[in-house]
């Protein structure tokens, strides 16, 4: 072995490289191509930043303009009449009712969709043979590619008809909670919209969770089995803890999607003015759906008010993402160290 060692390695004090050449290699300027590329990349970055700043400035200007004309409190009012159609041109509009509707439908969507998505991910990764699992995974991915207008149509034409039975059952059981009381009519409700949202966020949450669960380290799985864990106990000991932070962020990503979903919700909901707290009966509105429905008929102040509501939705999404980060940081800190 040692006799085969090349002489270069065996004699470290051989010829030293020429110092002059070494220095010139170190100080050599980047080539023309490098400089051109760096320059154009920088220009593109600056350009995009400027455009984005301009868009933000424009939107904020419009929003502030609308809010300054508002004759009621923008944050707490339930009305939405920025063009003053019912008040002789006096703009009265507030974000409260539609922000509430946005949150309620999205929370319903996540509460119903996330557990199913996680169940699907566990089933695909843990309970079926690998080949069948990737087949199911493919189907789930296909669901994610369905345009949301299709979900909206389906929710309106098919799902909503079947919701009255379920809604009535919920009212019979939980009707003592004000939220689940109705006026005797069901459907076209925030609950229906929530169910549509649940189905819409399911594929993405399931797909991300599946990728995470699939990577559970073999050692963790075997550690659980070797202790005498059943399959479900193994999942609780190894798979779920491993996936916790990633799946949490998948769920929050799904929540963000539900917050911003426009068309499907706009198609399903029967909007009524003001705050709707009963989620099983017709009525309710969301920020995104409100924008989609109102924008065509809105005049100047109306459009600016819708832009203001859009900025509020953007803020809500930002907050959700920020909270998600906090949650993930906390759970990974606990796992590491």
């Amino acid at each position, binding site marked *: 072995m040692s006799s085969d060692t090349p002489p270069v390695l065996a004699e470290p004090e051989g010829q030293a490289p020429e110092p002059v050449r070494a220095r010139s290699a170190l100080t050599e300027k980047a080539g023309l191509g490098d400089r051109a590329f760096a320059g154009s990349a920088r220009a593109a970055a600056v350009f995009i930043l400027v455009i984005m700043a301009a868009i933000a400035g424009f939107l904020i200007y419009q929003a502030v303009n609308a809010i300054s004309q508002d004759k009621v409190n923008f944050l707490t009012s339930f009305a939405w009449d920025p063009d003053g159609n019912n008040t002789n041109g006096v703009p009265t509009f507030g974000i409260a009712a539609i922000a509430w509707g946005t949150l309620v439908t999205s929370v319903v969507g996540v509460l119903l969709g996330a557990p199913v998505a996680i169940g699907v991910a566990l089933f695909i990764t843990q309970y079926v043979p690998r080949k069948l699992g990737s087949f199911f995974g493919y189907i789930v991915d296909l669901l994610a590619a369905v345009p949301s207008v299709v979900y909206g149509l389906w929710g309106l034409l098919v799902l909503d008809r079947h919701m009255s039975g379920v809604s009535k059952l919920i009212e019979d059981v939980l009707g003592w909670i004000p939220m689940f009381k109705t006026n005797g009519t069901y459907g076209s409700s925030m609950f229906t919209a929530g169910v549509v949202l649940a189905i819409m966020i399911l594929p993405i949450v399931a797909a991300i969770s599946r990728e995470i669960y699939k990577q559970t380290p073999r050692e963790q799985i*075997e550690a659980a089995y070797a202790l005498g864990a059943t399959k479900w106990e193994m999942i609780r000991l190894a798979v779920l803890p491993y996936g916790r932070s990633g799946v949490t962020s998948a769920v929050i990503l799904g929540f963000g999607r539900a917050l911003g979903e426009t068309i499907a919700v706009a198609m399903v909901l029967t909007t009524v003015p003001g705050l709707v707290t009963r989620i099983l009966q017709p009525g309710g509105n969301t920020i995104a759906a409100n924008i989609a429905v109102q924008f065509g008929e809105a005049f100047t102040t109306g459009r600016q008010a819708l832009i203001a509501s859009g900025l509020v939705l953007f803020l809500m999404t930002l907050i959700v993402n920020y909270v998600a980060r906090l949650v993930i940081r906390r759970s990974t800190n606990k*796992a590491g160290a």
Partner: protein
Amino acid sequence: MAKRIDVSGLSAYYGSVRAIEDISLTVEPRTVTAFIGPSGCGKSTVLRTLNRMHEVIPGTRVEGKVMLDDVDLYGAGIDPVAVRRTIGMVFQRPNPFPTMSIYENVAAGLRLNGVRGKSDTDGIVEQSLRGANLWNEVKDRLNKPGMGLSGGQQQRLCIARAIAVSPDVLLMDEPCSALDPISTLAIEDLIAQLKNEYTIVIVTHNMQQAARVSDRTAFFNIEGTGKPGKLIEIDDTPRIFANPSQRATEDYITGRFG
């Protein structure tokens, strides 16, 4: 309650590939048996058939008999989950549950066995950590993550986790190969103590270790790649190292191959 293991005519498959063929051997209670042999000869596979961990890998299969005292572990109506609760296992790389504290790691198996009471659990956790020679090092930070320990401590934590459920047999697959020499010695000392209560089978690629810790040594070999591993001989450890009856064993031990 240490038990005897009696293996006869054991073969194991990965898919259609036979990894070990026709293994027969006996492991007496309260002894340490070492499995040695070149890598790929099937030591881990044999070990994993003993607690039915082999079948955790999809597409695998086992033929033959493994008796634990008078119970056939592969007999009809035997639940592999119950087998693994009776026969504990420690792996090559320490694998504490990363999100759990030291305490929770040791208690993990107890929870599966339905031990719930706080004082019961506290007692068994302390006893197991003492049994794994780890108590004095961790008693002040039981609620800290198990991953915060050194590699050697993690491995002793895994041993504590395994003995917490009072198994009859303890299987160890190269438990020191990822550890430094000091931690290795600590584990070897521990094995010498555990022998008083458990039947122990340990796979090792380190022949000095086999000589130090084991009462009996089994030498496995493989004729060539793709061929199944076979048991060449099993005998008292001093005899295997001083005067093996098979030429192949002697060649391996004296370092002439493998």
